[in-house]
């Protein structure tokens, strides 16, 4: 197990009285992209929130890039260089695009961060003074992605960035994710429901079923889609 990826061991979490995920273990090499799939309500978002410390960790451990994060509050996890993109309400709707970016960028020079944003989504630079809430759904998702890139962190946790997006935007996001990994070696954990997107960008996949890992494999294997669909299909 590498010392600079994501290591989650036996992690349990949930809400008062109800464990949603039970003893989940996951690991990635540095620069690896892992897609976590599963139907709604199977604990995917809970997993990410528990890793960030936004939900109580009820046992197990979490390490990012070799640094212990199990007992850290969310802001301290973020300061380890872990970017988190929540599924809902992940932008400050009443703040401008620029303010949304500035809030996330604390170490690096803001100009450097903006250059990173420009490379991925140049249109955002024209919209810096616009309120984030006035962007379209797809543009908001791109701003979210841009914000994670602007931070320049080592690890990214992304919760269903493709939800409700049109195919062209999804393609664009996939390109940006692959580019970021190639240039910065960012380790990523993508929670996804969009199977083609997940298999296109990830190196490996895992299926979460009722709070437990039901299956894992490499994205390149020919039967990957079939194995995942067995867990997802109607």
């Amino acid at each position, binding site marked *: 197990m590498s010392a600079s990826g994501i290591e989650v061991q036996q992690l349990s979490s949930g809400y008062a009285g109800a464990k949603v995920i039970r003893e989940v273990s996951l690991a990635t090499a540095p620069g690896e992209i892992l897609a976590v799939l599963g139907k709604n309500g199977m604990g995917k978002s809970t997993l990410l929130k528990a890793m960030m410390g936004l939900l109580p960790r009820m046992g197990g451990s979490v390490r990012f890039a070799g640094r212990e994060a199990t007992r850290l509050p969310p*802001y*301290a996890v*973020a300061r380890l260089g872990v970017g*988190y993109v929540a599924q809902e*309400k992940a*932008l*400050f709707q009443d703040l401008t695009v620029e303010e949304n970016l500035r809030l996330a960028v604390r170490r690096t020079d803001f100009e450097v961060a903006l250059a990173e944003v420009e490379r991925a989504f140049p249109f955002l630079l024209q919209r810096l003074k616009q309120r984030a809430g006035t962007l379209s759904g797809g543009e908001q998702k791109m701003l979210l992605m841009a914000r994670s890139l602007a931070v320049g962190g080592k690890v990214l946790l992304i919760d269903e960035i493709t939800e409700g997006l049109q195919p062209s935007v999804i393609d664009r996001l996939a390109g940006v994710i692959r580019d970021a990994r190639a240039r910065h070696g960012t380790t990523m954990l993508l929670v996804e429901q969009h199977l083609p997107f997940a298999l296109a960008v990830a190196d490996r996949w895992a299926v979460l079923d009722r709070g437990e890992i039901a299956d894992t494999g490499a994205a390149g294997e020919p039967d990957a889609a079939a194995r995942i669909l067995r867990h997802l299909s109607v």
Partner: protein
Amino acid sequence: MIAQALDILTTAAILYAVATGLLLVFGVMKIINFAHGGLMTLGGYAALVTTQLGLNPWLAIPAAALFGAVAGMAIERFVVRPLYARPLDAILATWGLSIVIGQLITIAFGRGVQFAQAPLDGTLDVFGESYSAYRLALVPIALILGAGLTALLQGTRLGLETRAVIMNEDLARGLGINSGLVRFLTFTLGSALAAIAGTLITPLSSVDPGMGVPWLVNAFMLVLVSGASLVSLLVSCLVLGGAQVLVSTHLSPVLGGLTIAVLAAIILRIRPQGFARD
């Protein structure tokens, strides 16, 4: 006519100065700080001590800010922090602190009514109407407080982080913002503002251990009607403060004392978000 307009303007300024600290704390922490009255009293006594030491009365403002800030730090750390999950209990605990502050001041300064020296005496001539210079001075002072606070919130990194915590605390924490620290600093600032307000009102009223309490309820109602916005607080102070002046002069001063509380309760019944935008 002119006198009445000036009354409305200066009353709104006083109310604005009194309520900003409470609004800041409510906006960030979703907690009603009932120690606000006690902290105002603390500021009033800062003015008294300044007078007794023979110092320039304007110095009372920084002195009050210092006392208020230190008291606020202690209150946040030991009383408010354990109560974030119990907002109604936080009202009670901070009310208890108001009692404690009042009694400590009584023990130190006695129960009697005292007077601090006003920084400005005399009257000014405004459109042929001679009007208290100090009351007039409160208008720019309140505007400076509001502008300073706006600049802090809109123009600095800390202000940006504070606004982020107000809007969505979980998201802010996920982005690396230490919301606990933001709360601590906000409460400290809110307490300092309360004490400054206490100093500002001393030339208009006497200094006594219970002086802050009558202001508390009005400030509280204004904050509830305003939500978390400094702009809507300005509107509330003008509208409700204006109504208070009109009722006091045309009906009766006693009913005037009720105007803000009753109007605010009715406004909230009809429109729970009050003067706030959404």
